[in-house]
């Protein structure tokens, strides 16, 4: 299964070329140049943008600087969503680089959570992993791990260390052979045209009669709108890590190989581009 391990690496090392521009109304002492950065799809904005902050602080007075936050075309970007998800959901069919606007004032309390330190990101990340394992293994695997093992997962993410991360994460991807898969698949389906943040439900990877559930089966069950009829042109794209997996792909395989480091499958359903 050498190919499958390659998928894990490809997912981990996915990057999005991004251009950060300071919001025009921010008060600066001189002109602020845009800042270019390759953002890791699998990380979080506040974890990887220290350089961005340092760059813009060079042209600003300390008293004009509050908590940094980002927007894309007017949409506040939630730092607690993985970067790749934010891009797929909001900027999939726009030209690269991804143009993000940087703010240091008027934090949008209604839209965004505060992120005062990296320990907040760590707590959020670990909670997501725990929630995913509650679904996959009734929390048995994560609870059997020691505190230092949990720390290794976080350090692997924070320091972009694939081997360090997967040495631990592979345990979270195991399951009893006789089961054929996890108990339930941790997934979230995000919709651009909806009020609700995302769809998350209980869904088994294998049906009671042993039938392997696919991505298509999942969508048919929880969001049938996403799958167009044969005679209609495709209205929506179902995107994971910037690609559209075939609907026939087994959900268990997707969960093991295309999950984010938080062990969730984050799936974007976006309008298909009109020609």
């Amino acid at each position, binding site marked *: 299964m050498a190919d499958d391990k390659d998928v894990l690496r490809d997912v981990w090392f996915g990057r999005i070329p991004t251009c950060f521009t300071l919001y025009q109304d921010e008060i600066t002492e001189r002109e602020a140049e845009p800042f270019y950065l390759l953002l890791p799809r699998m990380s979080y904005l506040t974890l990887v943008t220290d350089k961005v902050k340092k760059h813009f602080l060079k042209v600003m007075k300390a008293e004009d600087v509050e908590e940094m936050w980002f927007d894309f075309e007017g949409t506040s970007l939630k730092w607690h969503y993985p970067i790749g998800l934010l891009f797929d959901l909001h900027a999939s069919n726009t030209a690269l680089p991804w143009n993000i606007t940087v703010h240091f004032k008027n934090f949008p309390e209604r839209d965004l959570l505060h992120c005062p330190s990296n320990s907040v990101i760590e707590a959020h990340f670990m*909670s997501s992993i725990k*929630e995913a394992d*509650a679904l996959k293994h009734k929390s048995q695997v994560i609870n059997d791990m020691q505190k230092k093992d949990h720390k290794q997962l976080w350090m692997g993410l924070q320091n972009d260390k694939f081997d360090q991360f997967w040495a631990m994460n592979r345990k979270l991807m195991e399951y009893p052979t006789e089961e054929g898969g996890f108990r*339930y698949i941790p997934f979230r389906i995000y919709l651009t045209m909806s009020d609700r*943040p995302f769809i998350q*439900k209980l869904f088994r990877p294998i049906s009671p009669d042993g039938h392997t559930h696919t991505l298509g089966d999942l969508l048919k069950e929880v969001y049938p709108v996403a799958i167009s009829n044969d005679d209609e042109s495709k209205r929506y794209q179902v995107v994971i890590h910037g690609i559209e997996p075939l609907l026939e792909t087994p959900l268990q395989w997707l969960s093991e190989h295309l999950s984010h480091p938080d062990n969730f499958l984050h799936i974007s359903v976006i309008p298909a581009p009109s020609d």
Partner: protein
Amino acid sequence: MSDNAESLTETQKDEPSTPQQPTEDSGTADEKKKIDVLLKAVGDTPIMKTKKWSVEKGRTVQSLSQFISRFLKMEANEQLFIYVNQSFSPSPDQEVGVLFECFGSDGKLVLHYCKSQAWG
């Protein structure tokens, strides 16, 4: 089971409305539905006199947390930690309806609350 579950919204008649009320905009019957939440105190955190609440599905964890803090008359600087399954802390913007669907049992969602970090 629900006859002694008080409605979260009714007790807030005299309090300012909580910041996040996603159900105000949406009019679908699905989101107006309520789920039963059972609140359990951890450690030496004060126990709520009323433990069973009927909460709108679209209510967020943060909104519920603020409600508990006010009910317990906690100080502004005191933190409250909420746990599901005694294992993870849901994101503040998570909807209780989703948590109920995935982690509810016997027709209710059990949430543990604590003034300090109980399960890391």
